[in-house]
């Protein structure tokens, strides 16, 4: 087996043109990850720029209203740029800079990863180009303008289904065109090795903070950690430090769109099969001939036909479980958290909130669950209004 395996998943299924680039990246990462100066610089950026540690907030009203387990919210939405994406982007851009790269490129779905990349590129003085499906540039128009404001060039991708998967295709194509000065800031725990490992390592701070904050607040570990999963970076970040704590249940919430039995969904664990795509062996929504399925979710950030290889492994070995959440349930959770706690979660994170609302009621009051609020929902307000039949546009 090649490098970068998570059980049978992972690997480096990419064009020869990119092989030296990922090898170089792996070498640089191995060199810098234990480098005191690099670690110090990154820690300073996390603290001074991103605003870490993010809060662990006890959702008292929600807990009382649901009447079951105690609910804590990990507030990744409070990070600079409004989501967990900044954790990974700061790490990768700093690494790219050390490697002598002057230009970064990135895919984006909802636009959160693109905004984070454009932001950090501005901060570190790097050129930035972002690839975003045409359908997503339409439904997340504000984020397009935000990236441009930050000095990035945004390309609307018109190939294929014009969503996140096509944005990844196009960014990979772009990387094969220009490698020498360019780093591909992959936004999730997916793609060819070493990306799933690098992204996880830059996101695992979420779970490490939860652990510490929970010990301070409750003197014990939570019973469950719940996060939404598209490619799976916020979930992997929240889960990773708890994998060794077998008593902590890890739950990933997939986008089921109109329902797992409806063709319009993006629930990879529920409906996918093993395949090889976007540089990795993992689970994908695909047909019998390996054609990647045109998936759907109200959430542009979860609208992806695959899942990171480490999640596929955690699913196989049963260490984490994955549940489907529909558009309807996510929108209700979006509204519920806004109303109940005065916190507007991203529609992506709302998938985790939706499942937690069900699950908390099943648990007794002495149980504790943590929901990772991976991003804030300001970007989704217009889309939710339209979903509810109110025609407002950004």
């Amino acid at each position, binding site marked *: 087996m090649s490098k970068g395996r998570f059980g049978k998943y992972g690997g480096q299924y990419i064009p020869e*043109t990119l*092989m030296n680039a990922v090898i170089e990246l792996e070498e640089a990462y191995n060199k810098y990850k234990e480098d005191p100066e690099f670690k110090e610089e990154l820690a300073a950026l996390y603290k001074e720029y991103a605003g870490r540690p993010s809060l662990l907030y006890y959702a008292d009203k929600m807990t009382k209203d649901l009447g079951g387990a105690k609910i804590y919210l990990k507030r990744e939405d409070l990070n600079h740029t409004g989501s967990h994406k900044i954790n990974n982007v700061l790490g990768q851009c700093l690494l790219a800079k050390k490697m002598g790269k002057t230009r970064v490129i990135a895919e984006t779905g909802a636009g959160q990863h693109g905004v984070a990349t454009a932001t950090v590129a501005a901060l570190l003085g790097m050129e930035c180009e972002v690839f975003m499906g045409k359908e997503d540039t339409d439904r997340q128009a504000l984020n397009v303008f935000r990236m441009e404001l930050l000095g990035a060039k945004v390309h609307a991708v018109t190939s294929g289904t014009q969503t996140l998967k096509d944005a990844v*295709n196009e960014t990979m194509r772009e990387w*094969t065109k220009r490698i020498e000065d360019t780093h591909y800031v992959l936004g999730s725990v997916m793609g060819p090795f070493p990306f799933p490992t690098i992204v996880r390592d830059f996101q695992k701070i979420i779970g490490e903070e939860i652990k510490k904050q929970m010990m301070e607040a409750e003197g014990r570990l939570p019973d469950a950690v719940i996060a939404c999963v598209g490619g799976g970076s916020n979930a992997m970040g929240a889960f990773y430090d708890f994998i060794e704590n077998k008593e902590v249940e890890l739950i990933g919430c997939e986008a089921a769109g109109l329902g797992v039995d409806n063709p319009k969904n993006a629930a990879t664990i529920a409906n996918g099969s093993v395949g090889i*795509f976007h540089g990795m062996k993992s689970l994908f929504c*695909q047909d019998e001939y390996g054609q990647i399925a045109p998936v759907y979710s109200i959430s542009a950030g979860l609208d992806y036909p695959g899942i990171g290889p480490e999640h596929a492994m955690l699913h196989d070995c049963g260490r984490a479980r994955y549940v489907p959440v529909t558009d309807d349930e996510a929108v209700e959770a979006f509204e519920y958290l806004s109303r109940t706690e005065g916190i507007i979660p991203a529609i992506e994170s709302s998938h985790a909130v939706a499942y937690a609302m069900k699950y908390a009621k099943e648990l007794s009051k002495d149980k504790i669950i943590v929901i990772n609020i991976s991003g804030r929902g300001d970007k989704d307000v217009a889309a939710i209004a339209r979903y509810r039949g109110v025609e407002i546009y950004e």
Partner: protein
Amino acid sequence: MSRIQNAFKNGKAFISFLTGGDPDLETSEKLIYAMEKAGADLIEIGIPFSDPIAEGPVIQEANERALAAGCTTDKLFDMVARARKNTEIPLVYLTYINPIYTYGKEKFMKRCQECGIDGLIIPDLPYEEKKEIAGICQEYGIDIISLITPTSHERIAMVAREAQGFVYCVSSLGVTGVRTEIKTDISQMIDLVKKTTDIPCAVGFGIATPEQAQKMVQVADGAIVGSAIVKIIAEHGKDSEQPVYDYVKSMKEAVTKV
């Protein structure tokens, strides 16, 4: 001697590409004969894929057309089996790894053997992942065609050592598609291959004109043309037999002159 070696035994080879099932499988079959008649030495047949990450817009669109027209891996195998009854030209599939993996690796290679596919070019299966299918390919006598690129550098010797059939030299960075100029030092890449092993080297990516092909075969054993042919097929659809024949003929003549 495998059919692929035949492609390189009479001087410089011209290798032509088509996307299977674009615009339909009947036309693809006719194009195979037309290409052979025009002098092509080997034909690459692309298995249409939803997400061809190594392709430029021209071949991406051909993939979309073929899939929309209902081409599947099974139907393509059936067409190849029919064509194989009428021709001995070497045929290789250009396919991404997922259609092979999902079809079932062994079942896929068995069908290749039955239908007369001689080799596989898999853009997203680099040297490091070749083990995914190498054993099963060997069992069924299917060559894995290795690619080397302008970024391969010190990897070339490693790739060449295990190369089968021929080495596909990617002329330029980026994806497939016509280019006005090829700047890479192809001869240096080929020298590195030949230092390791005596395997034919064919250059592809960006070649469209007889002049470009001629220039490439001054240092290489063959020239590969994809997008320029697919463009003709896009334009003429079901009536592309004659224009593809004319084009392939002009290209074969150009490489023969060297």
